[in-house]
């Protein structure tokens, strides 16, 4: 049984014929064609698929698309539409926070959610905020540095 659904992603409306089992990640990547969010573990563990739904971070792989028809969804591609998002993207570049890059979209979204609720997080708060995102290059230090830099610019 499929159903017609309308999703609001990064301010654009997407119409699709979906199955009940389709995850938000499938919709974002395969229907909307937004390939920034990554399919890693598909179990909610790695964090590479993290997106914002209604301003809160969720795992797109554990969220059913049919449950999101009335929500404002932001993926990593949507970060360029807000000041803090752009700040984070630049800071990741400046700090050399990206190695293979697979985890970075999720890192950015968790960091974006953190700075939204806490504009000036401490080092520990940044680490906790990113604790659900795994980087298999183990490049955590520069990722944390980048979030710190963006937070400092936030305060300035």
């Amino acid at each position, binding site marked *: *049984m*499929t*159903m017609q659904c309308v999703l609001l992603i990064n301010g654009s409306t997407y119409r699709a014929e979906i*199955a*009940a*089992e389709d*995850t938000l990640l499938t919709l974002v990547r395969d229907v909307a064609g937004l390939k920034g969010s990554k399919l890693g573990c*598909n*179990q*909610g563990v790695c*964090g590479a698929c*993290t997106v914002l739904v209604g301003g*809160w*971070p*969720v*795992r797109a*792989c*554990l*969220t*059913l698309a*049919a*449950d999101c028809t009335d929500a404002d969804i932001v993926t990593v591609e949507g970060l360029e539409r807000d000041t803090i998002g752009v700040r984070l993207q630049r800071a990741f570049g400046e700090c050399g926070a990206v190695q293979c890059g697979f985890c970075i979209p999720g890192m950015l979204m*968790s960091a974006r*959610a*953190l700075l939204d609720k806490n504009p000036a997080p401490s080092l520990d708060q940044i680490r*906790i*905020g990113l*604790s*659900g*995102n795994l980087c298999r290059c183990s490049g955590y230090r520069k990722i944390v540095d980048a979030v710190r830099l963006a937070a400092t610019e936030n305060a300035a």
Partner: protein
Amino acid sequence: MASFHRPKTTQEAIALLAMPGARLLAGGASLVAMMNAGLLTPEAIVSLKDIEALRGISVFADGSVRIGAMTRHRETAENRELHGCFDCLRMAAGGIANPVVRNMGTMGGSVSLADPGADYPAALVALGAMVELEGPTGRRRIPARKFFVDWYATAAQPQEMLTSVVLPSVGPGVGYYRKLTRVTGDFAIVSVALCLTDAGGVSIAIGGCGPGPIFSDEANALIAQRPGDTGSILKAGEILAKLADPVDDVRASADYRRLVIPRLLASAFSIVHENWKSAA
């Protein structure tokens, strides 16, 4: 392929649950993960997202608390009205997985799954919580102690759904929750939940060491008789370790878990000691 439903009321959800192969969807952290792994293929998915009555935490004048099934772990962890003995549940919620998963997972979803390594079961048993269930024939409340009946099995009937958990007022005191894990946020190798009232009441529950939380009135009484006495705490820990029925798994062996129970208990008591009036 499954059908998808978003009922507006609990009664509608219960009616939909009668469909063959129906599953309730709360936060998705467990259900969708199992679907992705091919372990579950529901024929009907009933999302509880739009049911207002299942949301939020209410604190009543008598000091009791009701936590709706759709309350996220984040909300429970951040609720400042959960203090004193209720810190036990607040701490348990705050230690689940990571901030993003805490923003998804719910009280009802976690408790209904009854994963023995999860954090809520032991905390709820220590606090003497009641689990509220609603089915086609009405509503009932059963003690958390009787709700977790086996590995991933609860006392809920097939057409019943968990609507809330209720924490009875226990008066002033201290609550504490601690788990031993390999990495922060993981399922517990062993967890300990404490509810210690200023009036001298002691309630301990151990998680991660059997099909459901381990508790013993004898162990509780032993500590209540001599609050703050290390020997009594270790003896109580031995009683609980004997009652435990842990398994060998990727996190730890059963023997190791039994060994840890009294030590984790003693460690937990050493931390709450100063704040517990009966022991001080």
